[in-house]
């Protein structure tokens, strides 16, 4: 594996900078200046070939099916990226946006309204830069709400199937996490919830549909139970793709939620980001939203005068270019188009579940939403989830999310998304069945997988035992 530093040779760099006729910038005393910086000395051709080569070692949605559960790796429409490169937006400075960026504010204002329509929430803030950032912001709002009411509530309830970001966000706001088990059907265990509910509970965070890909059949009951104790109900919207247009979180009884624009609303994941995690709230929580909020009078403006706000949570207004992509997507789909997204995503997942459930264990085998979970129980020769995942890479598929949710031992969480055709789903199912056959007949094949990838199995233990975190010449 080559890094750019291997191309380093003195004198290769011919990059040129615009001429400047007045070099009078000698005002900084020499004692403040450095003379120890070496980045790298390579040519433009080196740069282009190196990163082109690196790109070829990657697998993205454009390479093939990417059924990474709870990540909603759907196709990213190319027009989104075209609009996100327009200089009218790209060159706009945020500090002068009220004066020179009325178009940008218009788009943000419209997106706030659209997300309110889609979720039923009363207000939206676009500031959070990722899902986990939206969670953190929301937990701050929950904290501020009870602080303002003069109530001391220090517990947040989280189901045992939750993403790790939920408890981590809660801990950053000084709350205690109380885990609520799931029942044998994969829904929240209502008895355990009843036992845990008291006047110290500030809220419950629930991913809906949950990480087993199931829609909790008691959702309205759970909301009632929480509200009757004065607690709030938070929706982790990571899985909104399953229900967008089909049901609004506000009607399910949620008071506050985040939406991942990089999942449901088709913006690319960028190899780990940027995403965007706008949050929506019911009316009583609106005063606590972060500043600024985009408002409209004769012109669009940034509203900072919000005395109960938790304050600012981003350097500026959030990930604008991600919002612009999501806005474009929503404009192209409209409300029927969004509802079709959920319908096709759920149909694809159930089709694949049906094809696999006679060959693999499906611990919660009922009609699922946009994803489902299988495990490695009973695979021949003790073949594990990780080995199945690696072998899938050889067959040209990205692996599912593995070993999550934690409540399923050896979990493989499969989310095909709505943008895969039935033929692709068939091919994936065939690959899974072939792998199962290989597990019985030639397990060594699976043990040494992957064999067709740019590198073979990577030694993660060595990396952690002797960390090398930067290049040293």
């Amino acid at each position, binding site marked *: *594996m080559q890094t750019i530093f291997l191309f380093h040779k003195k004198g290769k760099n011919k990059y040129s*900078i615009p001429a400047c006729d007045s070099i009078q910038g000698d*005002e*900084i005393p020499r004692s403040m*200046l*450095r003379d120890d910086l070496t*980045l790298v000395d390579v040519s*433009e051709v080196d740069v*282009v070939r190196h990163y082109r080569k*690196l790109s070829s*070692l990657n*697998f*993205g949605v454009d390479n093939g099916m990417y059924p*990474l559960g709870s990540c909603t*790796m759907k196709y990213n429409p190319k*027009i989104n990226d075209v*609009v996100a490169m327009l200089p*009218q937006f790209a*060159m706009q*400075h945020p500090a002068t946006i009220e*004066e*020179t960026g009325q178009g940008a504010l218009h788009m943000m204002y419209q997106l706030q309204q659209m997300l309110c*329509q889609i979720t039923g929430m009363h207000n939206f803030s676009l500031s959070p*830069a990722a*899902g*986990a950032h939206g969670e*953190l912001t929301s937990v701050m709002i929950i904290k501020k709400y009870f602080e303002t009411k003069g109530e001391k509530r220090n517990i947040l309830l989280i189901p045992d199937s939750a993403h790790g970001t939920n408890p*981590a*966000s809660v801990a950053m706001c000084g709350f205690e*996490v109380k885990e609520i088990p799931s029942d044998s059907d994969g829904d929240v265990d209502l008895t355990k919830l009843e036992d845990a509910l008291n006047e110290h509970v500030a809220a419950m965070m629930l991913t809906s549909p949950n990480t087993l890909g199931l829609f909790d059949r008691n*959702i309205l009951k759970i909301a009632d139970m929480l509200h009757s104790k004065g607690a709030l109900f938070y929706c982790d919207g990571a899985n909104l793709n399953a229900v967008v247009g089909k*049901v609004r979180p506000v009607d399910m009884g949620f008071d506050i939620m985040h939406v991942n624009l990089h999942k449901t609303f088709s913006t690319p994941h*960028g190899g*780990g*980001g*940027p995403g965007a995690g706008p949050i929506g709230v019911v009316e009583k929580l609106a005063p606590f939203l*972060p500043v600024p909020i985009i408002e409209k009078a004769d012109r669009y403006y940034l509203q900072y005068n919000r005395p109960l706000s*938790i304050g*600012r949570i981003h*350097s*500026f*207004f*959030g990930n604008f270019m991600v919002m612009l992509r999501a806005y*474009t997507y929503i*404009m*192209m*789909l*409209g409300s*029927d188009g969004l509802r079709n997204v959920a319908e*096709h995503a759920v149909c694809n997942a159930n*089709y694949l579940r049906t*094809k696999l459930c006679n060959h693999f264990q499906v611990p919660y085998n009922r009609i699922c939403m946009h994803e489902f979970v299988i495990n490695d129980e009973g695979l021949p020769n003790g073949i594990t989830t990780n080995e199945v995942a*690696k072998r899938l890479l050889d067959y040209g598929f990205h*692996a599912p999310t593995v070993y999550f949710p934690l409540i399923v031992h050896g979990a493989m969480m499969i989310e095909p998304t*709505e943008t895969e*055709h*039935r033929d692709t789903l068939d091919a994936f199912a065939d690959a899974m069945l072939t792998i199962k056959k290989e597990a019985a007949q030639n397990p060594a094949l699976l043990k040494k997988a992957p064999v067709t990838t740019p590198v073979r199995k*990577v030694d993660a233990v060595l*990396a952690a035992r002797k960390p090398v*975190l930067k290049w040293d010449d």
Partner: protein
Amino acid sequence: MSFLPNSDDDILAMCSEIGVSSIEDLFCDIPASIKNPTIQLPQALSEQEALTHILHIGNANEQLCSLVGAGIYNHYVPAVVDHLVSRSEFYTAYTPYQPEISQGTLAAIFEFQTFICRLTGMDIANASMYDGATALAEAVLMAIRSTGKNRVLCSATVHPHYRDVLSAYLWASDAQLAIVPYKQGLTDYEQLSHMIDDNVACVIVQSPNYFGAVEDVASIADSAHNHGALCIATFTEALSLALLKSPGSLGADITCGEGQSFGNYPACGGPLLGILACRSKFMRTIPGRLVGKTVDEEGRDAFVMTLQTREQHIRRQRATSNICTNEGLCALRATIYLSLVGNKLIELARINHALASYCCSRLVALGYERVFTVPFFNEFVIRVDNAKEIRNRLLDNGYALGISIDTYYPELNDCLLLGVTESVSNNDIDNLVELLQTI
């Protein structure tokens, strides 16, 4: 427009395989009373109509000759950067959970970590944070964890937005924040000496600071260390790292800030590139992703995400942070940019400083007051009577002459904070001065 490949016939066949009569049956777990609500969105558009619509919105934005910095800097982005990050193997991938098919992303992050260490003089850099402000907040939480103390001192010359974000994060985690005043454009060292005691977790200084001035980070770091506190050095203009002594060499323990200057557009303020780097002793307390070098089964060099037991997906409520998605593609932009510009970054930084100095001197010659007479990098504060009015008139003439800063610094009324980068030429500055003489 639709991106659904399955036809009605496909759907029928799939439903039959599943054993339901229609898609609607698959939504049986949703209570009927709340299913299929009316959602009012604009009429769906074709791709062509959508583009026309977005262009129409975009044309309501104005593009001026901008002398504005204050946290976002308009540096030229070479064509190579846009070209390479447009390769969809990079941008349509997710977090590199499967290293065997993610070596492109992983190798680039490893290079990014290397560049950031070289620029900051630190031992370890993570794979990115959301932006400079949240990078600072996370750095401070890291200092609180490491020292076991929860009082934080932050200079008044730190970007006001960063202080606001920090304030929200610290309120949430029940820590205390106190602001150290400034004097003549720099952190008031004497006040700091009075405020600091052994209960302080960290002292935060920004250099170049919000006013563009170069701070004495070394003295502030000394003062922090004398009281068992950490020194966090932050920055908003990453380009300054090429010219000024690095935070690491000045004794900072953690450094963090905004990396947008490296190959990323102003983009209405996002996405940005949060940078976080530290000394090796904080290896297990740093938040965010880290990529390490290792080998594959055949002994070839390979890269992988490492030390993940710090992270939320393993450690849950005991993780070092809740961060999951970061700003990977922005970090890739920075990596390609730094590879291409290479050591010419130093010359670029010099030119930024020279242009800013030229602009400042021309304005001073016009009778504007340079408010702080300390050395600056590419931003500075000027005072002039009726500053806002002059600024407004210039807006109508195609120039953004800095920004007013009296919302955060009421004593600095009639002052403008200007930022000058290589996107502005000597000629632009001459034209600006000429214009100022006529209005």
